[in-house]
């Protein structure tokens, strides 16, 4: 079988698995967030939390709960790292230095999982499983909760109530993420991912050399790392490490895990607004762009385009594992940058210039193809609102989406949302390039070095977490700057989305007339694809010309 046929079949199987889950998982998700009944265990949790599961919240209260929960999470995670020396199961590792601990806490709470540390020699098992992995669950659930609140604002009318954050959070963790994680953990262990509490096994090789085979509760963290589109590796090499991703089978499975919730959420959306075609339309936009990026990146990577090193070696294998090769590494790179996961199974810094550039550009789209858990859906809905606004301008009608009018207030919020992330990414990059101390963190010479910095701030502001890893991130400047970028890039858009939801929920739906722009047809799908690409393209194009385009063309 030729490489191309095998590679295409690999993509085909991934799509088949996603298609098989789309309806049942989408229906299940919709039920989880609309069901009136609380389970007994959930009621017990609400009692401990001191909340009433049947009380609904306004957008302001919902936002307060999101911020309070995330702030407490940052503090606890910071505290755990600082107290590591005194904690059990820490493999004798000392406290994490404070700037690094701040960066890591911000990173995991914001669902970014940017890593400025080498886990093997910095994070003990307890901080990993009781600190970092907990955030892998709850930060994903927070994203889904905010998305669900926005979807409810389209489904409801003349109300200020968007649901209860604590109920959405608990149900997402308990009914969705945990059961899937339990099954996924066992599947991963069966494939060879380790799951133990050992600090490592000392072995003496056949030639008498000592080696430590690392240990850890890896599978239980690996599964939620992908499922919650988090991406923080238990080990430094992330999903390139054989204990996180031992085989082509585990590779396809974890690639599937990072896509399955963002994809199925479009189905839940369609069901919740009682028009499944709207879900298909968003999915079509996400799938089209993901597909375009995959074709482009695979084309460049298999040919080794624009890379002197790939030409010298006879293939773009630098930074790639033998068991995955070029095809599976490229498929992963596009999936991880389209979902805000940021886990890597190959070194992105060593990708050929234009593939690496596509990975970078994919994040710049705002993590909407199909995006992070929840954040992909709300990001795409914001862009859909922008698209109907643009369409409205063209034909001179008041724009509306899902029978809600898009007025000045909605457009202000949407505009702020669209501007926040690029501002953080580009201003951060500009400041870093202006500081000689920051520039000294760059590993590779020429335009590629600029790409490393641009990639870092784009990854942080978009909450992706993958890196051009040559950049030395563990410096006071990058720890603080990227930490702030991640927190602002996560929570400013979330507040704007909740404010948008509060505004939409209060509206009386307008009747559908012959003049209403249908938002489920090909015309709107193409229009939205155009809006996504043009808006981000125009914003970032100058920066891309200085980095990947200068290197690759």
């Amino acid at each position: 079988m030729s490489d191309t046929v095998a590679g295409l079949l690999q993509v085909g199987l991934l799509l088949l698995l996603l298609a098989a889950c789309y309806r049942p998982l989408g229906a299940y998700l919709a039920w989880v967030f609309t069901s009136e009944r609380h389970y007994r265990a959930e009621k017990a949790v609400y009692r401990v939390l001191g909340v009433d599961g049947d009380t609904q919240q306004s957008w302001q209260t919902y936002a307060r709960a999101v911020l309070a929960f995330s702030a407490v999470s940052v503090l606890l995670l910071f505290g755990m790292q600082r107290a590591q020396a005194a904690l059990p199961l820490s493999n004798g590792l000392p406290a994490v230095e404070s700037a690094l601990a701040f960066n890591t806490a911000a990173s995991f709470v914001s669902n970014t999982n940017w890593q400025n540390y080498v886990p093997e020699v910095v994070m003990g098992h307890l901080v990993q499983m009781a600190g970092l992995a907990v955030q892998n669950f709850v930060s994903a659930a927070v994203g889904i909760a905010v998305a669900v609140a926005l979807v409810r604002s389209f489904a409801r009318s003349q109300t200020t109530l968007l649901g209860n954050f604590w109920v959405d959070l608990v149900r997402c963790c308990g009914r969705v993420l945990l059961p899937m994680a339990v099954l996924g953990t066992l599947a991963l262990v069966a494939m060879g991912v380790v799951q133990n509490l050992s600090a490592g096994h000392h072995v003496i090789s056949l030639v008498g050399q000592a080696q430590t085979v690392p240990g850890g509760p890896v599978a239980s963290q690996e599964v939620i790392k992908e499922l919650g589109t988090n991406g923080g590796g238990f080990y430094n090499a992330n999903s390139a490490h054989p204990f996180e991703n031992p085989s082509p089978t585990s590779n396809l499975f974890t690639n599937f895990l990072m896509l399955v919730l963002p994809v199925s959420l479009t189905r839940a959306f369609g069901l919740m607004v009682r028009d499944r075609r709207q879900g298909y339309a968003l999915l079509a936009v996400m799938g089209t762009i993901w597909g375009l990026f995959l074709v482009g990146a695979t084309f460049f990577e298999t040919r080794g385009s624009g890379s002197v090193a790939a030409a010298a070696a006879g293939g773009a294998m630098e930074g790639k594992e033998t068991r995955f090769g070029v095809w599976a590494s490229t498929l992963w790179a596009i999936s991880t940058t389209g979902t805000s996961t940021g886990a890597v199974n190959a070194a992105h810094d060593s990708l050929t210039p234009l593939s690496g550039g596509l990975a970078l550009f994919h994040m710049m789209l705002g993590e909407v193809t199909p995006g992070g858990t929840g954040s992909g859906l709300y990001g795409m809905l914001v862009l859909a609102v922008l698209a109907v606004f643009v369409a409205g301008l063209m034909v001179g009608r008041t724009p509306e989406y899902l029978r809600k009018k898009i007025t000045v207030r909605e457009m202000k919020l949407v505009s702020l949302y669209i501007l926040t992330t690029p501002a953080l990414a580009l201003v951060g990059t500009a400041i870093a390039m202006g500081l000689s101390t920051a520039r000294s963190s760059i590993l590779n010479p020429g335009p590629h070095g600029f790409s490393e910095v641009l990639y870092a701030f784009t990854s942080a502001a978009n909450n992706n977490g993958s890196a051009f890893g040559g950049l030395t991130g563990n410096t006071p400047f990058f720890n603080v700057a990227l930490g702030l970028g991640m927190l602002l890039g996560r929570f400013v858009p979330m507040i704007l989305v909740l404010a948008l939801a509060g505004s939409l929920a209060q509206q009386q739906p307008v009747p559908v007339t012959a003049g209403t722009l249908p938002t489920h047809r090909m015309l709107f799908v193409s229009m939205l694809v155009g809006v996504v690409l043009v808006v981000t393209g125009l914003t970032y194009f100058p920066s891309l010309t200085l980095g990947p385009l200068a290197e690759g063309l």
Partner: protein
Amino acid sequence: MVSQGWASARQLGAAVRAVVVFTALLGLLYPLAMTGAAQALFPNRADGSLVQADGRNIASSLIGQAYLRQVVTHGRPQVDADGQPILEPDPAWFQTRPSAVDYDGLGSSASQLGPNNPDLVATIAARRAAVAAFEGVPAAAVPADALTSSGSGLDPHISVAYAAIQVPRVARTRGVAADQVRKLVRAHTKGRTLGFLGEPRVNVVELNRALAGTE
């Protein structure tokens, strides 16, 4: 404003309790229960797929190792300025890929060198010459995986092509028939899963363990 402050305080109280509850359930109960289940169902895999020879652990079949020996000149083992032994590839064993971390199990990493980094280009050229000389093959016969470092620095696999050019040298050094070595390589070669997932590959850790058993 009083009521708003009160509302925020109530959410904050719930937040503190929620973080504690989630840490207990998802941070302790879940991973410990999964560790118990994994150890009961798949003990060997959960512990790292360790492989033994002569009754001791020699490796994990998933984590690559370097097969090196100390350079000996005029009967004297050579050391560097720091007193550390100077190492070279041991011709008696199949060689793994170059590694950015020298197969240190506690330090997985790629080289992170960019696709046009002149240092990387020079390193690849030097490796091509060295591997060609070591195996006694033309420079053009050395495949890409022999010239590039992996994503993890712990890749246990090499390509089928890289294994093939090592066979004559291993056989010659060990004084066994090349066909016998080739048969071992074939036994440790895996095709693509289901015919299309991943890439064909040879597990060097398992191959060398089998090779040790032939003596």
